[in-house]
């Protein structure tokens, strides 16, 4: 297969993925730092390079509402947003997942107001972690592109039929230009395949009810069905990731480990910081510290067993959260990791950290310090803290 080596930002990569997927409908409203995705995609629509019906609306609430209508009608539907935009969609996100509409959304992680901030953290995406959407995080531009190409297959799978959001870190990835390997349009289209919805409201020969009132009689069963779909999603994400690897050369799973096999100290991170951690690990290994990384790619469904299986071998574990859940305990990632370890019967010293809120930079040295703290924790010189802030100004 002839791959094209290009230079692309995360936003450009996501727009290119959408061009290759050529969805039936996109409904979107602009918001920094995701605006470019739809701006570039609108160019593709204008130039006739996609056949998508692009609906420009007056708010994100309307964007997601239009996506719900279009997906219910059986159209392959996509959108993009960030931060306040995602928050404004909140109400409709639950409707999309509850009605079981396989919408795919690019989401650029950005802090939530107040104070107003346009930079990266995971607060917006984490606030929607219980919305019933599958959530996939990207370390870099390549992963953003690759995960977008897998998202429709996952969302539309008959055992899943659940919406998917693929996220990048605002500005760091969305506006950072990196080397991107793109695959030929025809090969991508073959992989993504034609969308054949099982049920649509427009199929008059097989009438269905969508968005009905379900009270004490069956609401619980609806939620259990979603619960089962999320369980199935784990398997389907792995299947699609494997097939993607066979087709395009890069395999994807629920998690990725880096030098974790023989690691004494393992750091758990998501998104672009996982890459910085890899660079920190390289330096620490030269200093004789056995450092390793567990990157969570898929946050929903949460790969608790897979994470516990990796962390069970560690002497100490650190979890980095780019989100503050104000629980006085730990950020959302650390809380879920700890719950998973408890269920697996794994008792490992675990310290949790909050970092990078509102785009605060995180450097190799910050991450190396976390590993040094883990070493001290393992040696009994330091007690593990929870929700410890990194990079705070004195």
């Amino acid at each position, binding site marked *: 297969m002839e791959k094209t080596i290009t230079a692309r930002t995360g936003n450009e990569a996501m727009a290119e993925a959408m061009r290759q997927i050529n969805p039936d409908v996109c409904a979107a409203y602009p918001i920094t730092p995701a605006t470019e995705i739809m701006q570039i995609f609108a160019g593709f629509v204008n130039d006739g390079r996609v056949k998508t019906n692009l609906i420009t609306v007056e708010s994100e609430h309307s964007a997601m509402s239009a996506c719900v209508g279009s997906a219910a009608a059986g159209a392959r539907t996509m959108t993009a947003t960030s931060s306040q935009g995602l928050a404004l969609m909140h109400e409709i996100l639950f409707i999309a997942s509850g009605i079981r509409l396989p919408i795919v959304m690019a989401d650029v992680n950005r802090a939530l107001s107040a104070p107003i901030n346009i930079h990266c953290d995971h607060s917006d995406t984490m606030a929607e972690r219980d919305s019933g959407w599958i959530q996939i995080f990207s370390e870099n531009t390549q992963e953003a592109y690759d995960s977008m190409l897998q998202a429709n297959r996952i969302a539309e799978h008959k055992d899943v039929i659940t919406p998917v959001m693929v996220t990048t870190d605002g500005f760091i990835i969305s506006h950072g230009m990196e*080397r991107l390997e793109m695959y030929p349009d025809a090969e991508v289209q073959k992989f993504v395949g034609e969308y054949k919805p099982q049920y649509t409201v427009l199929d008059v020969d097989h009438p269905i009810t969508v968005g009905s009132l379900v009270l004490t009689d069956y609401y619980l069963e609806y939620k259990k069905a979603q619960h089962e779909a999320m369980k199935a999603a784990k398997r389907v994400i792995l299947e699609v990731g494997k097939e993607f690897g066979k087709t395009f050369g890069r395999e994807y799973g629920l998690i990725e480990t880096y030098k974790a096999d023989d690691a004494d100290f393992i750091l758990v991170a998501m998104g672009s910081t996982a890459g910085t951690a890899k660079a920190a690990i390289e330096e620490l290994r030269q200093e004789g510290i056995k450092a390793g990384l567990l990157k969570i790619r898929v946050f929903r469904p949460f790969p608790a067993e897979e994470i516990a299986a990796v962390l069970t071998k560690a002497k100490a574990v650190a979890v980095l959260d780019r989100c503050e859940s104000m629980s006085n305990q730990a950020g959302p990632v650390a809380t879920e990791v700890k719950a998973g370890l408890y269920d697996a019967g794994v008792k490992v010293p675990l310290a949790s950290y909050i970092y990078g809120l509102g785009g605060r*930079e995180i450097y190799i040295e910050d991450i190396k310090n976390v590993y040094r703290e883990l070493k001290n924790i393992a040696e009994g010189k330091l007690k593990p803290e929870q929700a410890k802030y990194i990079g705070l100004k004195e």
Partner: protein
Amino acid sequence: MSKDMMEIRWHGRGGQGAKTAALLLGEAAISAGKYVQAFPEYGPERMGAPVAAFDRIASKEITIHSPVLKPDVVLVLDETLTESVDVAHGLSEETGVLIVNTPYSKAEVQARVKWNGKKLITIDASKIAQANIGKAIPNTPMIGALLGAVDILPLEAFMEDTRKKLEKKFKSKPEVIEGNLKAIRAAYEEVKKS
């Protein structure tokens, strides 16, 4: 930081093309088979305000996603920035390279930047741009100066890639394309000679 990777910081004022220069260089390096990151520093975006942009260029995958702290090369598109911005911040006096667009002498610039490195290069890129492009936009000749000063990318590889980029952007203005290419070469040769 391993030196398999070159880190570059651009200083300019909003509108001078610091980000464009970082992207142009990055794209050309990717065409030449390198791994690259190119990204601007995002603050309030205003014409004339100090801005910075960065490149990382390496022969293998770059995983780090944080700003450049210790650049190997710093380029200053507007020498008046030296009054308000510590342009040499993090730049080694032993191995670092500082390239400043200025009509003034090396000694005058050295006094202002408070940096005593050996590899200070001064070039009047605005004048070169004015003469060749007809506009004092110094970003493309500064890339020429960079390629003349540091061995990261062959000039011809950069010229070929940039010609393609400019041909797309300035279809109706061939004089802009030729002007930019001439300006890049002129700055490259001036640095090579000195």
